[in-house]
């Protein structure tokens, strides 16, 4: 009985791990289903066959403003769109927290920023954010055509709020997309994300 219990416990532990697991490079990216600013349901599984970028956003975070103010984020969104990559911007800010947007405000924000994402996802309850363990804004993920996570981390290599640092930094998402498009392995698959904390609800 005892050994059997131990085996059972071991098996439970083993099977419990994937459920609780954080996103892992080279493993399937967590699927999600969430409403975007236009009211449309967006599911990762619907984009099988396409490369997907996830970008965590808080319009009022100085790190986000750095990259939008300098047009860095919009440029990369446009480049991605031109390559057939699906760019999804995610706002996991809880109601009442800094940077939370309702669908109308999100639509206005996208228009104002002239951003080029395929959709702006309203993740008010933080489900998508927690599934990806998104910590900062921005926090970036690249998922390949098979749904495998290929990059997670910062938008670039210099953790700062200074616009002047953008040209000096390695743009990790752009680099990953270029390498994936060329059929190469992603040379920098993780970097520590930098930015403001994602304003999850309690």
């Amino acid at each position: 009985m005892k050994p059997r219990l131990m085996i059972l416990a071991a098996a439970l532990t083993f099977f419990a791990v994937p459920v609780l697991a954080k996103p892992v490079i080279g493993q399937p990216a967590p699927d999600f289903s969430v409403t975007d600013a236009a009211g449309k349901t967006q599911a990762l599984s619907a984009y099988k066959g396409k490369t997907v970028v996830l970008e965590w956003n808080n319009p009022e975070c100085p790190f986000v403003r750095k990259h939008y103010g300098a047009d860095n984020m919009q440029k990369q969104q446009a480049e991605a769109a031109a390559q057939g990559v699906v760019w999804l911007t995610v706002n996991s800010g809880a109601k009442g927290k800094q940077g939370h947007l309702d669908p109308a405000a999100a639509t206005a924000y996208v228009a104002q920023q002239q951003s080029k994402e395929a959709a702006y996802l309203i993740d008010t309850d933080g489900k998508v954010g927690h599934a990806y363990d998104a910590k900062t804004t921005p926090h970036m993920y690249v998922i390949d055509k098979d749904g495998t996570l290929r990059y997670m981390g910062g938008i670039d290599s210099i953790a700062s709020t200074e616009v002047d640092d953008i040209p000096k930094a390695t743009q990790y998402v752009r680099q990953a997309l270029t390498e994936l498009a060329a059929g190469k392995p992603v040379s920098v698959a993780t970097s520590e994300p930098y930015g403001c904390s994602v304003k999850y609800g309690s």
Partner: protein
Amino acid sequence: MKAFVGSGGRGYGLITGTELTSAMMRMPSSQATAARRQTRHLACVVALLCLAPTAAFAQSLQTDHVRAQLISEHLALVPGQSMQVGLLLQHEPHWHTYWMNPGDSGLPTTIEWNPPRGFKAQDIEWPLPKRFDVGGLYNFGYDDEVLLPVTLAVPADAQPGTRAHIRANAKWLVCREECIPEKASLVLDLPIDVAPAKPDPRWTKQFANARLAQPQATAWKGAARLDGDRVVITLRGPGLPPADGLDAFVTQKKLFDNKPPNIRKDGDALIVDAGKSEYFGTSPATIDLVVTAPAPAGIRGWHVQVPFTDASAPAQ
């Protein structure tokens, strides 16, 4: 908000081009923010002068949530000596700035010194950090009042009777839940004098506290190893504290997952069992560990370098 003006009112002040970049604060609503597309806005802040009753004077800067100034432990700098100066940050309640490893988000404070020729400012001697829980994410840094001490080497040929005009550009990110990047050009102007230097009575407490808040060197021996998604550090040696109330931090990023580690005694050993960062790459040769304990006034702590035994590394 009280203005910070030295008690003497004598002496002379100096305003340099003091600039504060206060990005995007107090936005009434997301809509208002969205209505403006910009990178940052500049807020000009009037620098308040600290007019010392003595010959030394320093400039202090009040931003929305922090008062910043350069201070010196002594009233004068002595040729050929290493003197203690530092950046004093006084935070508005609930706001904090960051340690060298800021945790899940944030940025460490930086000071770029521009002292006169021959003077050399060392790196910040980081005081022990506090842990801040920001909605389930963790930041490491300082609230209330903190002095970031720096050792300033004064050249042997500095001339007594002259003055040293030491400029520094300091940058910090100040956060409650929302964050504001700020920067300030600060100045510390001190006379050069012969030894012995007299302590500046205004800052005695701050420099004494800063010393107590330095991690103490230890004779502990330890080893770190990976255990699944945990980093487990075993410490042994004289003067290990009881496990209750301890916290632990690593100066390096991408090692721990930043959640509070499980710290326990195992016989005569102290075990620090921390979550492994999901950004953990290759194991470093050593882990720079800082262990903190609550103390009657603030926190006390220790520093230890622990070799890393990477169980997952391929056998050589």
